[in-house]
């Protein structure tokens, strides 16, 4: 993906990232200069370091055909390719955690909530940093043991154990004396690692690695596809029983056949996955913020970016099967617009209720205008845009 990165930067995404970075930097400086007494440095620190440590990607570059050609060379594949990849992953994980800690450290030292727990001597700071780096590196090793587990229940249990150990260890390292915290972290890691040996394990989990590699490749290509034409692969469908039933509400008639197909495709596809996660995140931020300005910015960002994600539905092309049925191809555009409209309007209304509820009495004109704009964007502009793009591409 490195050859495509320059297109990402050229598209203006780099500028957007820079703008976000500058905003965050300003906020960071402001927080350092004027730290609230009750700012939850412990919770924030644990969350930051936890997520930095548990992220353990592994690019194996294995493909389905490798089962045919590489299986006899399993040991060589392990020692020659995968173990070096694991070492790199552990190293990058440790570096990533150290960078996050370096950024967080001034806040950690200054916040009244954590000032007493923060190290006093440079050597102690160094020791804490090393402990956090080792936590991240251990996570890479533990994630590899997870991948090797034969049963999916064992993998899930090991992941839960790893995350719990990482969370508690990060909390201990930030809030307790280092010696005790390090001992606890060592014990937690040992317990999880020994537990991994109890369940049956593959020497090399071919199927799991091939599936992970396909997922990683598909996600990168989908991201790069926003900026430049790259070969894309059809993403795997997610069952989503909790929401897919909504598609059954589409009337059973020829007029709505395309609507049914697009509704189900949307609800089980990549576009909906990104859309609902983004909307849920914005809803959570809104629910906790309780600030008129933050809630308004969150609402606008949610609807603007979420709406653009919805238009991805218009890019879906179906295989030959769909072209031999007695349905007019023009019906597709109508169906795409209808699904985008329904999803957009529903989320606009729902997010507005969450964001506007505490503030609408105080600023009714502002919030009602925001709602009207959101409904116009999702109910009219986006569906038209998706239908028009579909027509151009045809």
């Amino acid at each position: 993906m490195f050859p495509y990165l320059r297109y990402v930067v050229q598209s203006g995404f780099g500028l957007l990232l820079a703008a976000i970075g500058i905003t965050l930097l300003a906020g960071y400086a402001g927080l350092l200069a004027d730290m609230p007494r009750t700012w939850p440095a412990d919770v924030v620190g644990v969350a930051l370091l936890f997520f930095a440590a548990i992220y353990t990607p592994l690019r194996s570059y294995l493909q389905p055909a490798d089962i045919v050609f590489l299986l006899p060379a399993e040991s060589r594949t392990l020692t020659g390719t995968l173990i070096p990849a694991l070492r790199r992953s552990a190293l990058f994980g440790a570096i990533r955690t150290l960078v996050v800690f370096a950024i967080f450290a001034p806040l950690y030292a200054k916040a009244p909530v954590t000032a007493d727990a923060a190290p006093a001597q440079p050597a102690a700071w160094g020791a804490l940093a090393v402990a956090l780096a080792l936590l991240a590196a251990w996570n890479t090793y533990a994630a590899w043991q997870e991948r090797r587990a034969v049963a999916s229940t064992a993998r899930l249990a090991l992941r839960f154990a790893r995350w719990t150990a990482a969370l508690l260890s990060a909390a201990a390292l930030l809030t307790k004396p280092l010696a005790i915290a390090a001992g606890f972290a060592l014990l937690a890691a040992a317990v999880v690692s020994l537990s991994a040996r109890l369940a049956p394990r593959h020497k090399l989990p071919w199927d799991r690695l091939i599936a992970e590699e396909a997922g990683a490749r598909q996600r990168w290509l989908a991201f790069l596809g926003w900026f430049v034409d790259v070969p894309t692969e059809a993403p795997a469908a997610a069952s989503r029983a909790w929401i897919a039933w909504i598609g059954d509400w589409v009337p059973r008639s020829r007029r709505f056949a395309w609507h049914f197909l697009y509704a189900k495709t949307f609800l089980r596809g990549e576009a909906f996955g990104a859309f609902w996660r983004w909307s849920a995140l914005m809803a959570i931020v809104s629910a906790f913020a309780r600030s008129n300005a933050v809630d308004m910015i969150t609402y606008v960002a949610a609807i603007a970016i979420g709406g653009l994600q919805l238009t991805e539905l218009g890019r879906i092309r179906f295989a030959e099967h769909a072209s031999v049925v007695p349905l007019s191809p023009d019906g597709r555009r109508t169906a795409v617009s209808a699904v985008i409209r329904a999803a957009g309007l529903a989320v606009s209304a729902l997010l507005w209720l969450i964001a506007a509820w505490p503030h609408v009495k105080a600023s009714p004109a502002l919030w009602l205008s925001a709602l009207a704009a959101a409904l116009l964007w999702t109910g009219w502009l986006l569906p038209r845009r998706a239908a028009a793009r579909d027509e151009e591409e045809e």
Partner: protein
Amino acid sequence: MATALTLDKLTGGYSARKPVLHEVSFDIQPGEMMGLIGLNGAGKSTAIKHVLGLMLPQSGEVRVAGIRLADDSERYRSSCAYVPEQPSLFPNLTVAEHLRWTESAYGLDAAESARRTEALAETFRMKHAMGALPATLSKGMRQKVMLMNALLVAPPLLIIDEPFLGLDPLATRALVQALNEARAAGSAILLSSHILPALERNADRIVVLHQGRILAGGTPEEVKKTAGASGADCTLDDAFERLILSADEAASREGGAPLG
């Protein structure tokens, strides 16, 4: 009742300068099963694509139930159901949802469709998999889903490309039974397959395609007779081999190169 399928001197292919099919003519009557056989590259898939309207003829005509695609594309498409060689399912629809979509696309009656869906799920032993997404199905099961969709429609013309590939023995029997029921109900079936014994047992007539031309056509016995292979022990496989080898010999004598 109109002829289910008519190919009248169909010439066509991917390039106007090098057509794949050369004046191919045959027809299929309602209730008849026609086997389309030929070597790889003979033009079977190209012929099927022309029938489906995915390719347009360079010359000649294709009519389904008496209709040309250009005259009434919706009625034309409503008159065909197609099962490709490679199962081609929508990744985001379950088995049951595929059948529901087919019901909507073809404007089928919901109650009748539900009854047929139940019967097809029973016939193809797919009742337990109705809620499954295609990614969780084996290739044979995906093939069964394609067949169920086509049989649900029960149109004037059923086109099936390599139906027996990937099916277990019970599913093969179920398919033959379902095809016979479709024929009894008046559907015509165009079946392309390399499994010649199955065609010999079940097809009413056979068309042998070679290098885009029809080498022989008729009942299995007539095809064997044309090939000079009409002995009691002679099979359609033997007849097919003889026809192809004779054609290649004739082409060599005339200075052309054999294909396949």
